[in-house]
């Protein structure tokens, strides 16, 4: 499979009153066609910003982005328009990501209208087809988002994203605002679509049980940096980074006899504004040592498994 998306040393800083906020700080990864990269991390670690920066909803501060072999770091207007037909986003909150004054068919048709390639009739036909694809009955065509439940609204969001037939979709916590029972439906829909259309997903979430289920590779982020990346199985089997360990230990297991040892993290997250050069997890890490205050580099501990911890060998 060919590499679809490659991100090199991507940085996104925001100017704040206190200084530069390092939301995304030197992320590297590549994604193959039809694969899913899960991105996990706690709130505020920059996972959503990463997705938005790749889509150029935010401009990157530094680094490069390659899509389909082409450098798309600084696209011109027309190139950007073309790009957005190839890469799309599904938003976290289906309550706020849909215009309350646009009916279901209007919302789904909007991307096609802007694209302006189809005739009116063809657009209407296409909209019906898209509704069918995402499992929305045609009778909802003229309803408004507020009349539908969360799952159906998210289906509208998915239909919108699909309407331009992209190859790559950033899924920004697409199910975290939904009921658990509906989460499974939406996840399965997304997996089906991936299979049918060969979509590549970047699945941003903080729900670890979902990410294991759908991802090929998983990237763990902490304060804008990648701390560990491996294939989904490998990450769960052979966890290396102390932060990942703490994170995975927090997954609830549906078994009352199972007494898992949760690793409780103490202390606050280090401020992302003008951070120190060393390991950002240091302040909360129980294995912290002196060498941790130095710059951490990603090391390949086994093929395809990267970890950014200088002590990963010592802490089994």
């Amino acid at each position, binding site marked *: 499979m060919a590499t679809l998306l490659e991100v090199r040393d991507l940085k996104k800083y925001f100017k704040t009153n206190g200084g530069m906020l390092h939301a995304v700080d030197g992320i590297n990864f590549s994604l193959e066609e039809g694969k899913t990269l899960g991105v996990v991390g706690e709130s505020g670690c920059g996972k959503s910003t990463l997705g938005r920066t790749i889509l150029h909803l935010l401009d990157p501060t530094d680094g490069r982005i390659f899509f389909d072999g082409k450098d798309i770091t600084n696209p011109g207007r027309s190139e950007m328009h073309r790009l957005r037909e190839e890469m799309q986003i599904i938003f976290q909150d289906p309550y706020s990501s849909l*215009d309350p004054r646009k009916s279901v068919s209007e919302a789904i048709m909007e991307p096609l209208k802007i694209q302006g390639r189809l005739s009116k009739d063809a657009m209407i036909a296409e909209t019906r087809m898209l509704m069918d694809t995402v499992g929305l009955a045609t009778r909802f065509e003229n309803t408004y988002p507020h009349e539908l439940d969360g799952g159906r609204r998210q289906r509208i969001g998915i239909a919108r994203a699909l309407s331009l037939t992209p190859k790559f979709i950033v899924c920004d916590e697409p199910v975290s605002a939904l009921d658990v029972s509906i989460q499974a439906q939406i996840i399965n829909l997304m997996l089906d679509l991936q299979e049918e259309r060969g979509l590549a997903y970047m699945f941003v979430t903080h729900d670890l049980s979902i990410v294991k289920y759908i991802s090929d590779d998983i990237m763990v982020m902490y304060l804008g940096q990648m701390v560990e990346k491996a294939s989904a199985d490998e990450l769960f089997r052979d966890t290396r980074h102390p932060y990942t360990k703490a994170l995975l230990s927090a997954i609830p297991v549906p078994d009352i006899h199972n007494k898992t040892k949760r690793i409780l993290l103490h202390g606050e997250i280090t401020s992302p504004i003008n951070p120190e050069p060393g390991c950002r997890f240091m302040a909360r890490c129980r294995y912290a040592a002196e060498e941790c205050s130095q710059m951490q580099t990603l090391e390949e501990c086994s093929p395809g498994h990267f970890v950014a911890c200088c002590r990963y060998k010592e802490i089994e």
Partner: protein
Amino acid sequence: MKKTRKKSKLKDLWRRLKRNKLAVAGLVVLILLIIIAIAAPLLAPYSYSMQDSKASYAAASPDHLLGTDKLGRDLLSRLIIGARASLQMGTIAVAIAATIGIAIGATAGYFGGWTDNICMRFLDIYQSIPMLLLCITLAAILGPSLQNAIIALGVCSVPGYARLMRASVLTVRDKEFIESARAVNAGNARIILRHVVPNSMAPLIVEITMGVGSCILAGSLLSFVGLGVQPPTPEWGTMIAEGRNVMREHPTLALYPGVCVMLSVLACNLLGDGLRDALDPRLKN
């Protein structure tokens, strides 16, 4: 295909509006007023300028249904003809003000940053001049006529609408659906016109309907200083001003034009409220 969809949207709007009895009442009154204004010369029993020195301050009688004024002119005829100038002043001036105000407010609010700063500082300067003074100056420069009075009134009431629109846009522009529109390549113009403005119009509609009344009254002030409608052409605001002088002896002289202004404001207001609710698909009315 598109036409039928547009039509069905209007139909839908009408269906929703119809359920609001007060809004329908407002609409009916407004349409009646407009018909009266258009057909005024046919409806008025007398000429608006015909004086009858024997019938000064005549009480209501079969001859003069609402009585006469100081110069013996038929009050009913003057009210009917006056509807023309007053309604034009109210509606057109507000339309001008609201259009410019919404454009400035939406631009300033949506783009933010220095665009916002320039627009708002400009409005600050603009508003530091008393509105009526500005209005009078502008009308004086343009020359006394109804048309110029309307333009002056419209231009002078822009800041209020612009500020309200900006505030309203600020609450909408950071919503996720705006970002979602950007993600599907919607340009700024499209986002402002299709997403931002429709979602921030609610407070504006109320302000606009209230503005009709204040523009009719402000227009009378222009007429009062000789810059608006030229006498003997009647106009409600001026009639109220004239009637005020003899309020104790002949209260009806100020009362009837006052009722006319109130009726048009009320009608606009009820219709505006109804429209605002009918335009919001989230409300099930």
